[in-house]
């Protein structure tokens, strides 16, 4: 069982595993792998705690009701699965600043957290605008040969590459 405690698997093994997993999501659950709708539903659930049932009248939440569904459970599962994997390889520990960020911008947590917050807002907004994320469009959509997904996935990377270039190569110099 040594493979369970390995730090990292070949990306081809992990990728093929995700491909096979997607066969089963289609067969057993009639669903593609996807994550970003779960965040939109959670956002609606939190808003509902403060504003009550009025939230349900928003047109967006009529289309995507703020309730726990298959995909919401999938995202919860990701947290658990990643924890188990990291725990088995001794890679689970709490940290505020990832390595490459620290090299470029130092170890102050607040700067990293503010950037993550701003990035998260843009990504959450963009994911709902595009109707999917790196899993829903990038993996599940492209493997179904969906036109919207190939276009979206291409734009995810164009936007991401340009931004990281700006942050890490132009700002830092």
């Amino acid at each position, binding site marked *: 069982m040594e493979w369970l405690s390995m730090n990292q698997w070949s990306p081809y093994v992990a990728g093929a595993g995700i491909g096979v997993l997607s066969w089963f999501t289609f067969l057993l659950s009639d669903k593609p792998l996807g994550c970003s709708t779960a965040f939109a539903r959670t956002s609606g659930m939190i808003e509902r705690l403060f504003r009550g049932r009025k939230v349900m009248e928003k047109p967006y939440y009529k289309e995507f009701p703020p309730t726990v569904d298959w995909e919401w459970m999938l995202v919860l599962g990701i947290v658990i699965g990643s924890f188990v994997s990291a725990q088995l390889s001794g890679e689970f520990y709490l940290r505020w600043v990832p390595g490459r960020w620290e090299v470029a911008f130092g170890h102050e947590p607040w700067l990293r957290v503010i950037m993550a917050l701003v990035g998260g807002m*843009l990504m959450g907004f963009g994911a709902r605008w595009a109707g999917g994320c790196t899993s829903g469009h990038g993996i599940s959509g492209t493997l179904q040969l969906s036109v919207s997904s190939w276009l979206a996935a291409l734009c995810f990377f164009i936007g991401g590459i340009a931004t990281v270039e700006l942050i890490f190569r132009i700002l830092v110099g």
Partner: protein
Amino acid sequence: MFTTFHSKKGPQLLLGLGMGIVFGFLLQKGGVTNYDVIIGQLLLDDFTVVKVMLTAVVTGMPGVYLLKTLGLGKLHPKPGSFGTSVIGGLIFGVGFGTLGYCPGTIAGAVGQGYLDALFGGVIGVLIGAGLFAVLYPRLDEGILHKGDFGELTFPRLLKVNHWIVVIPVILVLVCFLLMLEKVGL
């Protein structure tokens, strides 16, 4: 064959959780829940993310299309337009680069102990998604439908049997992966 099972709520929620655990395990073992790996991909010096994604596509595509051919599964291509995919995709990309995780891998990053993902990224994604829900009625009247093409797939666009597209796409993606290995990326 599984259609009645698809509508059983309790078992499906449990199945979603189980499949998520497998997904999270694979993402973490693949290295893509790691900020440094994602930033390395966007800086084009570490191709792990592309390798994981394309291998998943190459493996998933023939299986899912086989399920469709055998009548055991249905496709769910997302509807879209140039307005949603291009503009939404670019906004997502800017956020993706700034945050260094995506909605799936951020859940994995949280599970691995990244507090910047939990207290910065996840809160940000929830705020961003909420803002979109506020602006949705206005956006839905215009820009989201610019260049609308609906639930289009490439086989339908080209009006050919899906295997005529599936097989060449797999070959091209496999060649691309072999080329990455050959140049040492």
